[in-house]
């Protein structure tokens, strides 16, 4: 039964981000899957909001939420003891088996599914894979970078150079791929970042699994609202909530307005 009301166990504020820990009963989620949250109490907003699952263990679920509009603003106001109505886990997650030496690339809140993935890969392989994380500014997520650096093998790029390397995560990826030998990339972040990934992974002939975003209604594949453009054929679409959110990079139509069309 993928619907439940979970009690908020913990809320940590990291700059623009809020890390929620929500109680769940026996939920088995894979990295890349998401939770679809109802926002608002008395008269909730018509559409639920999708968020990548950042952690799933010990009877709780982790979510990293950045405030960008009314739904996330409402979420940011939730406190310990409040209850969240969610459908989870939804969607198709990352395939962990495909690469031997994966590199993880995240932009902004794209960190959430990749952190989850890093921990799972670490558990499976005994060591943490490298995760590159791009931010506008070191302050964006408060003390989270410092915490993560102790937790996983992390390299940071900030546009203003306030933390880690100065530049985009794509710049960081470029030097990383030149430096070390990887056989696959996992990526999640803003569409522009994912689009910019293309030339690099093609240059290095690397396979890539990417988690993309699209506005959603049902979240379970029935409404066809979350379409993204498929590569190859004109006018052919995939559903982010069902066939994704994780896709093979080459299955989507990059360039132009991007697969999401926005």
């Amino acid at each position: 039964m993928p619907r439940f009301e979970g009690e908020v166990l913990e809320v940590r504020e990291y700059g623009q981000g809020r890390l929620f820990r929500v109680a769940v009963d026996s939920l088995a989620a894979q990295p890349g899957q998401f939770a679809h949250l109802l926002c608002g109490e008395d008269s909730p907003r018509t559409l639920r909001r999708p968020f990548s699952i950042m952690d799933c263990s010990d009877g709780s679920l982790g979510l990293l939420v950045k405030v960008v509009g009314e739904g996330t603003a409402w979420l940011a106001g939730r406190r310990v003891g409040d209850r969240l109505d969610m459908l989870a886990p939804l969607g198709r997650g990352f395939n962990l088996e495909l690469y031997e030496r994966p590199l993880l690339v995240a932009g902004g809140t794209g960190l959430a599914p990749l952190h989850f993935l890093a921990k799972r890969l670490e558990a499976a392989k005994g060591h943490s894979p490298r995760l590159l994380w791009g931010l506008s500014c070191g302050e964006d997520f408060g003390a989270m970078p410092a915490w993560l650096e102790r937790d996983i093998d992390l390299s940071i790029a900030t546009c203003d150079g306030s933390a880690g390397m100065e530049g985009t995560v794509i710049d960081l990826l470029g030097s990383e791929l030149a430096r070390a030998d990887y056989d696959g990339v996992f990526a999640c972040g803003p569409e522009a970042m994912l689009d910019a990934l293309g030339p690099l992974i093609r240059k290095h002939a690397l396979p890539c699994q990417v988690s993309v975003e699209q506005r959603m209604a049902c979240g379970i594949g029935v409404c066809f609202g979350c379409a993204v453009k498929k590569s190859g054929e004109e006018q052919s679409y995939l559903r982010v909530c069902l066939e994704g959110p994780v896709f093979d990079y080459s299955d989507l139509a990059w360039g132009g307005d991007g697969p999401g069309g926005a």
Partner: protein
Amino acid sequence: MDSRLAVELAGIRLRNPVMVCSGTFGSGSEYGDFLDLESLGALVTKSVTLNPRAGNPPPRIWETPSGMLNSIGLENKGVERFIQEDLAHLSALELPVIASVAGSSVEEYVEVAGRLSDSGRASALELNVSCPNVKRGGVEFGLESQAACELVTRVKERCGVPIFVKLSPLVPDMGAMARLLQEAGADGLSLINTVPGMAVDIEGKKPRLGAVTGGLSGPAIHPIAVRSVWTARQQVGIPIIGMGGITDWRSALELIVAGANAVAVGTANFTDPQATIKIIGGMESFVQARGLDRIGELVGSLRV
């Protein structure tokens, strides 16, 4: 299930008057994770066309005050695969299934409707003559009564199952349209489809939807639906399936008191996958508390 909720719709027996709207419930099985499908009154499937359709370019949805816009554009796998895959599966359930038909020409409607009727797997058909997201076709049948009536006559000639006609709230004279469709042989009406709407990204100076315009649904349009049902009910005796912005048993009963014999829940499924079940429960309590023998006593019971 309380037998007082049972209703009959053009000869089809429903265990309760709560159905799901076309296009908002997939091919039926998906919501099976959230509820027992056989507790619904009936299920209306997503509109199908003769050939597969890819649908409109993304983005396809946008939230609006108390509602949403969609421009799915009738993405579907075409009538043959629909019959083989989806209807085959659904017809195994103890649940009346109404198949929704769309097309860009009278011929296409007749062909699709005929194949569905022949399949023996649909209890009835709903002609979606009002999809605002299909550029060619559709519109003329939907807003112009002569075209709509001709379509009904042609489909009726070809099909052996009851035919419901689904109308847009933009029909200029809903009462007259309803009366003419009844005369043309329609077995029932489905009211209402989404309302044409649009939203703009003022920073990017771009429409929010890839298809520019879309259809407005959700609580925002409920008053429009109630008025459409009531206006039609003043003119016709055939069954009306009321829909548009239902969120709870109260908004469902508003449509029934205004004249609908059954109701269909659309957008609310997205907000709450168990919305239909809660609505059925609320209706049960209401019928009980009021000491009604059957919910049908409420249909069109509005005193004006």
